[in-house]
Each structure stands twice: as structure tokens, then as C-alpha cells.
């Protein structure tokens, strides 16, 4: 993991002191609320419906046991004993006091964490593949790149007051687990014909009111030119991005309105003007950062484990092993996902006790390292197969052994109107009801891979557009109303879901999902075809009856 040097440390400490003074100047009246709002958002502090909310950055989702323990302490001391892991690999506390925020930042700085740019119209926390350093199909660990981008973008004097927020994601793998196609900039580490590594650069993707998939602006950018190229893109966006309409202010609209060709020409012009400015760092600095992400001290192990195979005779363990493990590139190891989606609970929440348990287990079984996924789960990235039985037993004891990763109850949900001021409807209760509806583990296994994503407003924090089943909550004349989309996909074949039909009431949603699933099970090819593949094959039409009254749907079937 990256560790701060004296400069990183000083900057974060100074930022804490600066925020403390900003809070004091708001309280003494030097700053108006409008002025202060801009400043507090840049440090991740929102005002929600009932309280402030503090969003803590977990850069590229990598977390140490020590850091997670500190988050648990903050949850206990300054919040209500829990935190919420977000779709951008961050954690949010829902109940802090404004006057406590500086002290919380101090505790975060003690473990090399911060809230810098977790909100505001600036370059947000950089995200990356949660299986970085684990996946066998990886050309290169994306985290050194993400860390470099984090540093370059922190308190950037030119790009801290952009037209709108700006999100960058990095992947180093053939399979895209970082959803780079729906980010303002998506970076994929690639190799050219000469065998050099560089970046394929996507620009102008994003969800929200006008979802768009990113377009390739450079098929191969030499790695040494990364920062100056990013600077050129950001400069064109800062100058020309729309500021007259919040919903048209993201870079995707600028790219769309100018057209990719004209946008690219402007970027290349600014890029040429930046040549020789020494924005880019030298190879030694790249190597210095990369060294922090060197592989841990793996043991030489056989590819299979007798203890693991033996334990699989327990059907519950076997089920867990089928759903919650991801192949590790090192023989004898695996990456284990801890589901934060127990049946009927708010997706992505963890109590302080659970955080401490996960921190302990990371220390015992995973070189003290954890990852936060954009699916709102936690990963122990480097677990010995031999240790799985003991680790699983500990998870069972802590109530953290739900075997549903990638399945229909592994639901992504934004906080929705139970917390969020921007929400137009609630999300969490919808997720809870669907989860309870599909609680039968055998049936869930039969249904197979199916991602439901729920947003409580058009801003799409729940990524509903790219859910295999997407649910969007709206306010229809004073009643919560939910629109269902099908066929979205966040991965390599990035696709936006198609509207199934008119919106429905919240209490009808579980039944509608049930019918969609039934239609899928009837249509799928053999036992193995995933929902998304069936959808791609048959299209939207066969699913439309799912929204009709039950009798009509039966008659049509």
C-alpha cells in the first residue's frame, strides 16, 4: 500500500488545519453559507436531510486493517456506530456534527486518510479495479497510476472549480471491473506493438440524467505523458464546459456537443502548448510510487489445497466458495469477497464491530489489506486457500458470511431519501424488500449472476443505468414511483439499460422483479445462461408483460 512521505503528510495535515479554520469562519460569519458550502463540499461534508454527512476518501478502494479500525473508532465516537460504503469505493458517515468534522479529519490524518475532493466540482477520488494486483489477466497493477493521479489532482490550483464533478477510473486488466466506460475519463493500461505500456484513454462517459458511454480519445498514450494529457483535457473542459445548466455541465455533454473530433483537436492543441512544462513526473517517481504496491510476501504453495477441498463437503461452505471467491494469480491464494448485503439489511452498511472484525481478519489472513468494491462489498485480496475454512468460520460467527456475491440479492443502492437531500424517492427499503423476496439461497443460486442497481434520483449514484436490472426512484405527483430498466452492463460490453415501461409504486417493485426473473428463467438457454446474455439474445419485448397486472401477464404467458 502507498504510504505518505513527509510532503504528503504535511499537505493533509495543513488541509485539516485549513478546514478547521473554514468551519470557524463560517460560525463567526466571515463566510456566508453559500461561500462555505463550496468549501465544505470540497472536503466531503454534505448537509443531508437530517444531518451532515462526511464522505471519506478510500483512494482506489485500498484500505489497511489499521485504517479500517480507525474508521470504526470514528463511527463510534462521532457517529452512530456504523458507516456506509459507497459505489465510488468511499465510506460515508451519516451523522457527524459540523463542529466535530475537523477532529474527525485529524483522526483520519493519523492513519493517512482524508476527505479531500470527495465532493465538489473538482477531480474526485480516483477509483480502480478492486482486484488490482490479484487478477491474472492484469497487464499492470492500476493503483500506482491511480495514486499518481490522486497526487496530481489534489488541491489542483487550476482544476478545483470545474463546471461539475470529474471522475477518473483506472483498470489494468483485460476485463473491466472499474466501469471505466462510464467515467469522465477512463484509463486502461495497454501494451503497444513495441511492448511498451501506456494508456488507452476514454473520455466523456457518465451516468446521471444523460447517460453516455466514454469514447476513445487516444488509443495509446505513452505513460510518461499521462499527467500533461490529463491536464490538457481538464483545461479544455474547465474553459469550455457548460456552466449555464447543472445537468449539462459534465464533460460528456461538451464532448457530445462539440463532437469527438473537434473535442480531440482542442485537447491536442492544449496538449501541444503544454509540451516542455514538466508537468509529468520522471520514471524514478513512477517507480517510487509503484514500489509501494509491490506484491506481499506470498508463500510458495501448491495450486490446490486439501483443507479447502475437504471443507467443501459442508454445503454452506461450498456455496460460499462458489460465489465469494475470485481466482488469484498466485497459486494457492484466492481473493475473498465479504458481502455487505445480508438479506434485508441496508446495502453497503457496516457496523463498527463488523469493521473491527474485518480488520482483524485482514491482519490474520490477508497481509492486513482490504479493498472496497464499487458494488459496496469488502475484499480480502490475498487469502491462502488453506486458510479458507478458518476464515469462513470466523465470518459465520461475525454474521459476515453471506454467500451472495454477484447474485440477485447483491444489490447496489444509493442512500436514497432516507438520508439524501437530493433524492426524489427512497432506495434502501426497495433493496430490502427485493432482498427478502429472494432470500432462498437455492433459488438465488439457480437464478445466477444478476445485478440489481437502485438510484433514488436521476443523479444515478446507484448506477441504475448499468444494472442488469436498474431501478430509478422518482417523485410522481407526491408519490414515490419507480422506473425499471433492463439490460444495462457496467463491464466490457458497457450498455445502458432500456426502460421496461411506465413507472410503478414501490410496493409493486418486488413482484415486478419476480416476474422479470420468471420470464428470464423460462427463456434462458440451458441452465447456465446469465440474465444479461439472455437479455442480449431476446431483447426487451418478452419482458414487457412483467409490468402488466398479474392476470393479464398470466394470460399473455
Amino acid at each position, binding site marked *: 500500500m502507498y504510504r505518505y512521505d513527509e510532503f504528503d503528510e504535511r499537505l493533509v495535515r495543513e488541509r485539516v488545519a485549513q478546514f478547521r479554520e473554514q468551519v470557524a469562519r463560517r*460560525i463567526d460569519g466571515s463566510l456566508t*453559507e453559500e461561500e462555505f458550502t463550496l468549501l465544505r463540499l470540497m472536503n466531503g461534508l454534505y*448537509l443531508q*436531510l437530517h*444531518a451532515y454527512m462526511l464522505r471519506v476518501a478510500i483512494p482506489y478502494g485500498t484500505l489497511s486493517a489499521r485504517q479500517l479500525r480507525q474508521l470504526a473508532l470514528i463511527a463510534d465516537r462521532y457517529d452512530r456506530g456504523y458507516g456506509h460504503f459507497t459505489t465510488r469505493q468511499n465510506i460515508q458517515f451519516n451523522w457527524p456534527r459540523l463542529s466535530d468534522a475537523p477532529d474527525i479529519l485529524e483522526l483520519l490524518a493519523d492513519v493517512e486518510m482524508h476527505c479531500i475532493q470527495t465532493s465538489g466540482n473538482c477531480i474526485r477520488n480516483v477509483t480502480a479495479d478492486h482486484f488490482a494486483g490479484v487478477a491474472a489477466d492484469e497487464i499492470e497493477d492500476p493503483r500506482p497510476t491511480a495514486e499518481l493521479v490522486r497526487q496530481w489532482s489534489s488541491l489542483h490550483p487550476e482544476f478545483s472549480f470545474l463546471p461539475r464533478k470529474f471522475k477518473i477510473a483506472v483498470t489494468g486488466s483485460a476485463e473491466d471491473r472499474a466501469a471505466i466506460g462510464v467515467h469522465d475519463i477512463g484509463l486502461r493500461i495497454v501494451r503497444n506493438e513495441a511492448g511498451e505500456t501506456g494508456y488507452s484513454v476514454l473520455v466523456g462517459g457518465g451516468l446521471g440524467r444523460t447517460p453516455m458511454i466514454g469514447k476513445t480519445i487516444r488509443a495509446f498514450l505513452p505513460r510518461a505523458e499521462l499527467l500533461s494529457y490529463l491536464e490538457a483535457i481538464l483545461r479544455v473542459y474547465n474553459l469550455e464546459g457548460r456552466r449555464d445548466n447543472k445537468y449539462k455541465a459534465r464533460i460528456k455533454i461538451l464532448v457530445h456537443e462539440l463532437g469527438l473530433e473537434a473535442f480531440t483537436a482542442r485537447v491536442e492543441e492544449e496538449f501541444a502548448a503544454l509540451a516542455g512544462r514538466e508537468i509529468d513526473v520522471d520514471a524514478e517517481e513512477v517507480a517510487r510510487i509503484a514500489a509501494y504496491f509491490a506484491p506481499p510476501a506470498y508463500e510458495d504453495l501448491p495450486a490446490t489445497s486439501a483443507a479447502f477441498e475437504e471443507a467443501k463437503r459442508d454445503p454452506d461452505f461450498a456455496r460460499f466458495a462458489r460465489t465469494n471467491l475470485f481466482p488469484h494469480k498466485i497459486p494457492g491464494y484466492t481473493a475473498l469477497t465479504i458481502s455487505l448485503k445480508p438479506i*434485508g*439489511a441496508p446495502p453497503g*452498511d457496516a457496523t463498527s464491530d463488523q469493521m473491527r472484525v474485518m480488520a482483524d481478519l485482514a491482519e490474520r489472513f490477508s497481509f492486513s489489506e482490504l479493498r472496497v468494491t464499487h458494488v459496496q462489498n469488502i475484499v480480502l485480496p490475498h487469502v491462502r486457500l488453506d486458510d479458507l475454512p478458518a476464515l469462513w468460520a470466523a465470518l459465520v460467527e461475525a454474521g459476515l458470511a453471506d454467500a451472495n456475491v454477484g447474485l440477485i440479492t447483491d444489490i447496489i443502492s444509493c442512500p436514497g*431519501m432516507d438520508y439524501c437531500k437530493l433524492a426524489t424517492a*427512497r432506495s434502501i427499503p426497495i433493496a430490502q424488500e427485493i432482498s427478502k423476496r429472494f432470500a432462498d439461497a437455492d433459488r438465488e443460486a439457480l437464478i445466477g449472476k444478476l445485478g440489481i442497481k437502485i438510484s433514488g434520483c436521476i443523479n444515478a449514484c446507484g448506477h441504475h443505468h448499468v444494472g442488469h436490472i436498474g431501478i430509478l426512484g422518482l417523485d410522481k405527483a407526491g408519490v414515490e414511483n419507480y422506473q425499471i430498466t433492463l439490460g444495462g452492463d457496467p463491464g466490457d460490453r458497457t450498455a445502458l439499460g432500456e426502460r421496461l415501461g411506465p413507472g410503478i409504486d414501490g410496493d409493486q417493485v418486488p413482484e415486478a422483479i419476480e416476474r422479470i426473473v420468471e420470464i428470464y428463467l423460462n427463456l434462458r438457454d440451458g441452465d447456465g445462461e446469465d440474465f444479461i446474455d439472455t437479455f442480449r439474445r431476446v431483447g426487451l419485448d418478452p419482458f414487457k408483460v412483467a409490468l402488466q397486472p398479474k392476470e393479464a401477464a398470466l394470460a399473455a404467458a
Partner: protein
Amino acid sequence: MAKRPPLPLILTANALLDGDVVYFTRTGWSRDRAAAFVATDEAGGEALEASLEEAIQDGEVVEPYLIEAGQDHYRERIRLGGPTIRYGAEALNVPL
């Protein structure tokens, strides 16, 4: 300024230091909805509008706005009552 909602009116906001939902009582701000001053006539409505303007200017509370006292929109219900879900340790023992 946004159009004034219909009478009867109350003025609400969030407290600066802890973000709690507060209601204007004419002598200050209260966390108790029942203590809110309710403007039932035009004169009261204008007085509340003036109080809203003053609240925006002096910044004692955050994001003040007027709501129709009698309305029952789910947003205001949730705002008044808190999250409709259980959270934290309580959320982990959900009856199925």
C-alpha cells in the same frame, strides 16, 4: 426567490452545528415541529417571508425554506421523522 407555497406556512431549516431539522418559532428555532409558528393569514405569510430572508442573510441556520404546514409530502415526513429504515447494529436483525 422561489414562489411561496400556499398558506398555512411554516419556516424550516437545518441547524448549523449539527444539521438537525429545525422550525422557526418567531423567537428562534426549535427542533420541535409542534413549536413552529404557523402563518395562517397573509400578514403572517409575509412575516415568515421576511424571517426567511433574514435567516438567509444572517446564516444562523442552513438552507431555510418555507413549507405548507398542512401538506403531507413524504419528503417532509421523512425529514421530520428521520430515516424510515433501521440502521447500524439494529439493521442487522431484520425479521424476514
